[in-house]
């Protein structure tokens, strides 16, 4: 008995790929048909198509699937726990007094975006390495400063991501795998170092964060010992956050957990009040926390041979860089940083926008942020679209990730489906769907700060580079 004949016993139901007229004809005959919104794989580039064909070879595809299963298993079973706060010099691997960590893939000072230059010079003044911004600029260009990506120090940095020795960092331990992740504290507001602002108000705030805010949080965590971030993140998603651009719920949950321990610290009531007021001044307080949480989980998936899972997406305002598990932590695949489309603060125009910047896309790499937009219908205005579009983003991201979703982080409106996890380079190429990133917009010039927020995507070039490198390595 031919199994082909089985189709003769059931109604014809078609999927049409290519010319729409064939779908229309099938529909006109009363049969079910779905017409695909299809784009050529690999952007239609012959070398990339050939590389994809190599990766699709059955023996190789089998190894890749097995490796990706391991990678995504590590991601979804990661249990990031906040265990403390401490000075970068004391806690971040490889940190020195003359090291400046920055967001994104490696970049020389000369090539840095305006916002990042502003942050670097501000940080040098803050550290006392330069007496003013002009001197800081000379020092930065002198070659005496070690610039290095946060990502190469188990760290992430929001926006410019500029991190210097005296800044206080989150310390996040990934319980099952024993790796640590670090990130800076939120400066709240808009005119801040990480957005490229660097005047005295910015430096004064950094001083207070170093002298009061950081130490109080450090002492509070000594008392609290640990906060399970994954559990708190799961709650925040159910409360309407996507944990990149909307952190209202997460910030409330986090300060609620810290509050008794802050009160228990030995600081003055005035200092404690200042801390609570500072946290209340912006919903972003927990934004960096979720970045470190995501970083801890994603670092556990590095360096799994044959895996095509993306472990890093980040930008320095000039280049967008990704890293892929099988290609190793040392390999950056880059393309040009993109424009961020979204509403701007009053008084600013599209001509003021800097390009996409920051390590915050680690949240999307982990499966939250833009990937969890269905959790956060309230940020739809950022998308400039409808609630169904926001839901569609979360649905679509499952087309470019592994088949495993994160059972700990669920999306109520999608029937509590887990967040799409483990961006697969091959699937990005096959579908032409790029990861969606919710992010802030910094002014293109140094010294000004945040001017808006919106949506963006990585450049496809970074994925082409990764695909070609994977095929080259494993052919």
């Amino acid at each position, binding site marked *: 008995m031919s199994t082909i*004949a089985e189709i003769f016993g059931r109604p*014809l139901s078609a999927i049409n790929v*290519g010319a729409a007229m064939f779908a229309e004809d099938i529909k006109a*005959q009363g049969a079910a048909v*779905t017409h*695909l919104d299809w784009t050529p794989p690999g952007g239609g580039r012959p070398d990339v198509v050939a590389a994809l064909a190599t990766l699709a070879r059955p023996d190789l595809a089998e190894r890749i699937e097995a490796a990706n299963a391991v990678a995504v298993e590590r991601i979804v079973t990661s249990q990031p726990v906040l265990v403390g706060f401490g000075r970068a010099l004391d806690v971040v691997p490889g940190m020195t007094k003359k090291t400046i960590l920055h967001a994104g893939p490696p970049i020389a000072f000369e090539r840095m975006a305006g916002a990042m230059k502003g942050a670097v010079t501000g940080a040098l003044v803050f550290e006392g390495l330069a007496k003013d911004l002009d001197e800081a600029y000379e020092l930065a260009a002198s070659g005496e400063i070690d610039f290095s990506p946060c990502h190469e120090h188990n760290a992430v940095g929001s926006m410019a991501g500029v991190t210097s020795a005296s800044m206080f960092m989150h310390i996040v331990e990934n319980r099952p795998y024993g790796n640590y992740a670090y990130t800076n504290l939120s400066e709240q507001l808009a*005119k801040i170092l990480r957005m490229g602002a660097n005047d005295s108000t910015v430096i004064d705030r950094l001083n207070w964060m170093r002298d009061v805010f950081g130490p109080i949080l450090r002492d509070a965590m000594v008392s609290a010992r640990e906060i399970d971030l994954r559990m708190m993140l799961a709650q925040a998603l159910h409360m309407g956050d996507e944990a990149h651009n909307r952190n209202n719920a997460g910030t409330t949950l986090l300060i609620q957990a810290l509050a008794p321990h802050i009160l228990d610290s030995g600081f003055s009531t005035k200092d404690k009040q200042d801390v609570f007021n500072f946290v209340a001044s912006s919903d972003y307080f927990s934004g960096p926390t979720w970045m470190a949480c995501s970083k801890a989980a994603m670092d556990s998936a590095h360096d799994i041979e044959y895996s095509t899972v993306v472990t890093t997406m980040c930008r320095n305002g000039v280049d967008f860089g990704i890293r892929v598990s099988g290609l190793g932590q040392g390999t950056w695949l880059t393309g040009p940083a993109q424009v961020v489309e979204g509403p701007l603060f009053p008084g600013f125009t599209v001509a003021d926008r800097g390009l996409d910047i920051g390590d915050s896309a680690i949240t999307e790499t982990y499966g939250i942020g833009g990937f969890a937009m269905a959790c956060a219908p309230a940020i739809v205005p950022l998308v400039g679209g409808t609630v*169904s579009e926001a839901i569609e983003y979360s649905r679509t991201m499952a087309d470019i990730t592994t088949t495993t979703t994160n059972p700990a982080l669920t999306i109520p409106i999608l029937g509590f489906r887990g967040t799409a996890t483990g961006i697969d380079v091959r699937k990005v190429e096959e579908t032409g769907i790029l990861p969606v990133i919710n992010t802030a917009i910094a002014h293109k010039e140094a010294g000004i700060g945040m001017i*808006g927020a919106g949506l963006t995507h990585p450049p496809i070039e970074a994925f082409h580079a990764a695909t070609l490198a994977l095929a080259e390595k494993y052919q």
Partner: protein
Amino acid sequence: MPTRTLIKNNTYVDSVSLMSISTKAAALDGVVNAVAAMATPMNKEILTNQGLITAEIEASTPGDLVLIVVTDGDEAGADAALEGLIGLLDRKPTGSDTEVTYRTVRAAAAGRPDANVAVISVNGAFAAGEAHHALDAGLNVMLFSDNVPLADEIALKQKAHEAGLLMMGPDCGTAIINGVSLCFANKVRRGRIGIVAASGTGAQEMSVRIHDFTGGVSQLLGTGGRDLSAEVGAIMMLDGIDALDSDPGTDVIVVVSKPPASEVAEKVLDRLAASAKPSVVCFLGAGPEVAEAAKTRGIAFFDRTKPAALAAVVASGVDESTLDLHALNWPLIEEVRAKLTPEQKYIRALFCGGTLCDESMFLALEKYDDVYSNISKDPAKRLRGTDPSRGHTFLDFGEDEFTNGKPHPMIDPSNRIERFRTEAADPEVGVIVMDIVLGYGSNPDPVGVMLPAITEAKANAAAAGRHLEILAYVLGTESDFQGFDEQVAKLTGAGVTWASSSTNTGLLAREFVYKGENA
């Protein structure tokens, strides 16, 4: 610059929405700057920096909404701009669209578990990849795309064979499954004759002739033109025969192909011989060895489509004596011969359908040597599409040299108009032959597209004092959406002779121009 400021007390709108509203307001007519912001300390600082702060704003609380428009027109314009900004605060609920968009075969197959066939017509460079995805998702495949490498075809068909799935194509133009026509196919009666065809227009012709002879089609499976090559080894034709053999809806199996590789032909014939169901083989242009091989296995064999269709219909139980067999119209042939001068001696055939072209060409070759074509197997008789005609010339406008970057001539028959004009002006031309293919996928008015050129050519010939014979074949049924009768009426109205089948087209053409002892 005219500026308007409005404070709405105790009106909360979230900051992200306000940013969106400000941005939209800034795009309103005459607006230089627009602000919609809560009166927070941070926003007050921004407004101070921009020189827009007022005492009233300074006194507002973070629960108050500040609206400002700065305009470059007159005072009335400023009022209108503020109204526009207020209007943007009224957000209407948007309907939700539940239609899910799929971008990949994999995602669509997962989201549509009832799906059982993928119809793929993307560029050949990507077609095999998509077909692999479809087979991996458990879907039968109709691969319409051409320019798919042979190695990919073999890999796909082996995968399909192992999975028990149809892998029709590449370059499969026609299929009818469960009465649903896919790509280029005609609306024919459902019935009990199953067709497996390695040629698209051959399949269309067979299904339409069966319909015309009052028979019906159970299933029509296309295999793609290379399936019966030695390399592919008829993987899909053999699986298709298996499927029809076990299909309770099929009583008679018909196989259609251009001449197959001989060892492959034997495999196909062996498989048909093993079936209890009667079968009919139509291998166009096949030599006597294949005919003999079929005969020794007791299989009805034909090298023309029309008698094959008749045999299939009779095998399915139709009484031949009730049928209009469309016998060749000899009085018409005599009439045309009488109109042609001695130098009007060549056939110039301009086809959209490759198999239709083949059948007419093979029939001409039975009678003439000087037959040239862009699909000739004999290199000495092969023309490029751009070469001028020689002797009897048969051109298939569906070949890659014509379709590269252009729609198939069945979709856009205008591709052959220029060539038609050239041939019509040639005093050595005895008859111009054209096919008009109706059905799904084809041009909605294929005759209409050709008609102005036909009328003009006829007039030019008349003015030059010669007869221009145009023979057209309309492949279609009365149920095809283009309207069979209307298409034929347009042709005959323009003085075009029409043929009733592909076989008769070839026969009429070769007889019209015959200058032998009887002419």
